[in-house]
């Protein structure tokens, strides 16, 4: 190895929940100045491992060493004192507090026992500047869109001036541009000698950024090596243990079906005066920087927020849909981006979540048909490879598996239009591929798919065309051939839209 | 407050809680009295506040009455101590303050009007001891804890009970002065104690609850004291029990208004107007029940009153 003492190290560490082992004798060492990737499928135990390294959980066996010395009981405070900072996914923010207060939470500078707001402002501003956070520092975090909150979370970690920075899927809700800012930042930090542990399901990112990789599979380390000579395919092989095959299904242009959505002068939330139409069998991508109205566009179509249009026809209905009930009845389904807050009822069981939209469809003698429901749930779980007992609370699933549940629950309704808001966020490559295949199959079966995504390659490879949003309007519509990553990002940034428009 | 203020007067009634039926009936006697006095050109207006059971709010409302410079304030107190200071303030402003039924501790006001709670307790206890010939097991039913009326009645009974060692107090209850909780409590006691010889119930609708508990559990009725609640009087007659009741006449309210006006006119009024307890027993109950239909089903059948009675009461010293 490179000879330095690891700043933080886990040796033979293991952890289980309710008797189910999640990590089995895992070793990992974080060295200064090294960008260390942690890879694994959904549920492999990555988040669990970092929770152990940051003191949020206690290991069942093995030990954690800081600067080579074993610590007996690592707490969040202890980890922070040791210089470990973790970026959770928007998890540790308090909505009512300002950006600055959130950044400083638990580690704010004090004077005479009180928060020193002046020092906090300066240091929080510095941390925000590093991640490109331009919102006023006094703004409550609750007012920020998801992607920006993620940046706050990262700034919060930087604020602690960490020696070890752990990033758990930091880019999953970031657009390409913001992800680029982050990559640059990570490199700078590493150059300053910070040890970085980087978890992501976006393998191209990992390859471009990281020096070293540890791969977890079913709770054991299957690879622990330098990334220098590993190709993207090689990475996937390390993770899933077999040949990856093509990531994206072969593109097939849509056969011109009937118009399922046609709106003119459509406004909702942050969206103004958009004209849009789409046909059965299409996959239409929706792109742009984070928070340019893309989400409000989907929500408005879905009837979940108030919307107006000069003319509208949706699934044969001659006007905008009045509410979610009307939308689902008309054949629309919406899969939200923030699965924890909007997509799932976390404390309820997987089965209950899967049944929620189709309640009342399986009835016998006026009562719910338990057996029928159980069969349906089992069928859905099999279709999406959700393993294990469906009687568990959905919050016990790893993020990727939660995403599958959020998608699968709509299938029994047989929707004709799928409004998907970043459906592969936090999903591992294997599952991503399954989802892509599924989307392709849906489109082939004559469904219309609106795919809002922060993962630009998805837009490039899957979509018949991509509508790029900027400041609440569609600034470009790029047809499949023209929609390269550069073109999409360029349009999103407001560059040369005219020339690129198809 | 010697005649500084000129008729017609504005009168305020600072009620602690206007929803219970007893209060509604009392309000009735007050408004009747005010109507009469209006005709005589003595009263201009009546303002009623309802503190919703909150003594703190009552202070605030009395303060508002002072601010509005009313001529007289009638107080039904929500606490025997809490209003002392604000009442004293009112008096220094020359406002006539009359307190009735639920009394305050202070003497710095125009007049207090009430029956004697101690006497209530002692006479009820005496009657029950007589009924039992000085020997037997009894249960005592009190009003809510921490309320002075309830406390005073219980205190009044104590010397009588102490003087009659043959009387054994099995247990006591504290409930709101209502039927349902009284019935619940008495039912539990009936199961725990197969032998109860008498019930010393000290007010409100407690006795009705007790009688119903005996009835529903198929137990023979025992001598029971009580108040003039219509339901109790009707049960008393229907179940043919040995009963005794007294009352807190609702016209204490009317008397208070009358007293306030007299005081404002410069007449000397006694600082404490003791209203003799009207007693209901087997000899008088029929008279009361005959009037029953004029009273609410969950109300209190009070004795009749007139100005002559008021004048007589005001004349005592």
């Amino acid at each position, binding site marked *: 190895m490179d000879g330095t003492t690891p700043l933080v190290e886990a040796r033979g560490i293991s952890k289980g929940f309710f008797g189910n082992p999640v990590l089995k004798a895992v070793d990992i060492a974080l060295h200064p100045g090294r960008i260390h990737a942690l890879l694994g499928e959904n549920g492999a135990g990555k988040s669990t491992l970092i929770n152990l390294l940051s003191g949020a959980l206690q290991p069942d066996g093995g030990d954690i060493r800081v600067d080579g010395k074993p610590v007996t009981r690592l707490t969040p405070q202890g980890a922070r004192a040791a210089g470990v900072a973790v970026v959770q996914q928007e998890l540790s923010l308090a909505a009512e507090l300002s950006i600055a207060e959130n950044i400083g939470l638990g580690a704010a500078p004090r004077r005479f026992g009180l928060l020193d707001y002046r020092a906090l402002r300066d240091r929080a501003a510095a941390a925000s500047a590093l991640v490109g956070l331009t919102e006023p520092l006094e703004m409550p975090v609750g007012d920020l869109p998801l992607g920006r909150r993620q940046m706050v979370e990262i700034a919060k970690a930087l604020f602690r001036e960490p020696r070890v920075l752990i990033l758990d899927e930091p880019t999953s809700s970031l657009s390409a541009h913001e992800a680029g800012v982050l990559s640059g930042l990570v490199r700078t930090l590493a150059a300053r000698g910070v040890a970085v542990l980087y978890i992501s399901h976006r393998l191209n990112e990992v390859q471009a950024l990281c020096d070293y990789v540890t791969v977890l599979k079913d709770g054991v380390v299957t690879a622990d090596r330098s990334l220098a000579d590993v190709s993207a395919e090689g990475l996937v092989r390390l993770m899933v243990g077999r040949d990856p095959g093509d990531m994206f299904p072969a593109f097939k242009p849509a056969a011109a079906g009937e118009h399922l959505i046609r709106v003119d002068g459509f406004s909702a939330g942050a969206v103004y005066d958009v004209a849009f139409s789409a046909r059965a069998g299409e996959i239409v991508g929706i792109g742009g920087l984070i928070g340019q109205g893309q989400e409000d566009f989907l929500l408005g179509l879905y009837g979940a927020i108030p919307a107006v249009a000069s003319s509208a026809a949706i699934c044969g209905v001659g006007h905008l849909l009045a509410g979610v009930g009307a939308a689902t009845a008309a054949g629309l389904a919406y899969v939200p981006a923030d699965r924890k807050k909007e997509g799932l009822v976390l404390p309820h069981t997987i089965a209950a979540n899967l049944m929620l939209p189709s309640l009342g469809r399986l009835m016998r003698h006026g009562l719910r048909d338990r057996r029928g429901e159980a069969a349906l749930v089992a069928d859905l779980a099999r279709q999406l490879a959700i393993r294990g007992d469906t009687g568990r609370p959905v919050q016990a699933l790893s993020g990727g598996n939660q995403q599958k549940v959020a998608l699968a629950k709509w299938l029994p309704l047989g929707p004709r239009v799928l409004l998907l808001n970043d459906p592969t966020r936090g999903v591992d490559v294997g599952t991503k591929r399954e989802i892509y295949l599924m989307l392709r199959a849906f489109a082939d079966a004559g469904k219309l798919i609106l795919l809002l995504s922060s993962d630009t390659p998805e837009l490039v490879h899957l979509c018949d065309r991509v509508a790029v949003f900027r400041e609440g309007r569609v600034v470009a519509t790029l047809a499949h051939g023209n929609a390269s990553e550069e073109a999409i990002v360029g349009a999103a940034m407001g560059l040369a839209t005219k020339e690129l428009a198809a | 407050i010697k005649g500084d203020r000129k008729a017609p007067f504005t009168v305020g009634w600072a009620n602690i809680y206007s929803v219970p039926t007893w209060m509604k009936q009392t309000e009735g006697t007050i408004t009747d009295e005010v109507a009469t006095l209006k005709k005589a050109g003595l009263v201009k207006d009546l303002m009623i506040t309802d503190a919703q059971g909150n003594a703190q709010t009552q202070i605030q409302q009395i303060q508002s009455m002072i601010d509005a410079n009313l001529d007289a304030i009638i107080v039904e107190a929500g606490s025997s101590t809490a209003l002392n200071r604000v009442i004293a303030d009112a008096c220094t402003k020359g406002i006539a303050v009359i307190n009735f039924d639920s009394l305050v501790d202070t003497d710095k006001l125009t007049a207090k009007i009430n029956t004697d709670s101690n006497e209530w307790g002692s006479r009820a206890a005496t009657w029950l001891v007589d009924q039992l010939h000085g020997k037997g097991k009894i249960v005592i039913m009190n009003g809510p804890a921490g309320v002075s009326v309830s406390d005073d009645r219980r205190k009044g009974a104590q010397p009588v009970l102490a003087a009659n060692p043959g009387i054994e107090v099995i247990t006591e209850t*504290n409930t709101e002065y209502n039927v349902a909780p009284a019935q619940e409590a008495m039912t539990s006691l009936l199961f725990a104690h197969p032998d109860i010889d008498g019930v010393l119930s000290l007010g409100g609708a407690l006795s009705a609850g007790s009688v119903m508990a005996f009835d529903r559990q198929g137990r023979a009725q025992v001598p029971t004291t009580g108040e003039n609640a219509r339901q109790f009087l009707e049960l008393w007659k229907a179940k043919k029990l040995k009963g005794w009741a007294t009352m807190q006449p609702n016209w204490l309210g009317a008397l208070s208004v009358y007293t306030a006006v007299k005081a404002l006119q410069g007449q000397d009024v006694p600082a404490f107007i003791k209203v003799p307890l009207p007693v209901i027993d087997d000899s008088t109950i029929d008279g009361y029940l005959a009037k029953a239909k004029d009273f609410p089903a969950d109300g209190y059948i009070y004795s009749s009153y007139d100005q002559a009675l008021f004048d007589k009461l005001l004349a005592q010293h």
Partner: protein
Amino acid sequence: MKAASISRGLLRNPPLITLALVALVWIVAGLSLRGFAAVGHLRYILELSAIIGIVAAGQTLVILVGGIDLSVGAVITVTAILLPLISPDWDPTGLLGVVLTLAIAAVIGLANAMGQVFLKVPAIIMTLAMATFLQGLLVLIAGGSAVSVTNEAVIWLGSARPFGVPAGIIVWIAVAAAVLTAIHRRPFGARLLALGANPLAARLSGVDVSRTTFAVYALAGLFSGLAGLLVLGMNRQGYVGIGDPYLMTSIAAVVLGGTSILGGRGSYAGTIPGAILLVTTTALITVVNASPGWRSIMFGSLILALLLISGREAQR
């Protein structure tokens, strides 16, 4: 291993724990207190529990959906006072009066829901304001005329004992069956729980928030009304304040039964023993001869002790 996991499962089942607690308290009290274990006494405890249980049925639904109903006490009082006033003389069965009164109670519940759905007023404020409003109404209607209950149906409710089982308990069993079915075997229940646990996700999944809210609060009003009739039947007389004790007890029964006060988790199955537990505790305190201060302390401590055993909530 298997046995251990089953017993662990039992320990994590709040309704069962609460039920076991009831059994425990009854056995201990029955062995140590004279008259406690008499059939008549236990039956009486159940009869009283029926009232709380029925009020708490509505309260359970409301709390499951993430709200709270502070107007149940006022609704009980209003129904108890209104029934004699609106029962028509020409209907000897009294059923019409009962139906009318229950309809009014349900409409009050609907009004509670309307404030939340249309005015976006939080449940606690809306129902608190409704309680205040009903108090005003009571000042108007109570004590106005000489009425006592002559309604046959209500008298039957309060005193009949078909096969030795008090009518109140029979009504409770029916309510319990209906509510348990609604929660566990009808889509309504699943929607309710989803709405209580995550309103946003439930709405985006097609749960009709307004309709569910209307249904829940109307049912809460209806059940409170039913309880009001039962109380009226047992006391033969409605009076102002008759419903007051049922506000806090209904909430306490729900929480003692293991339902989360934050909504989204729990069942009426726990509320049932919760109600019995509360009544039993009150009955026990009544027969102890102690000063009011000590009684109050004992009651509070008992609730706390029961909670320690039954209500452990693995918070978030």
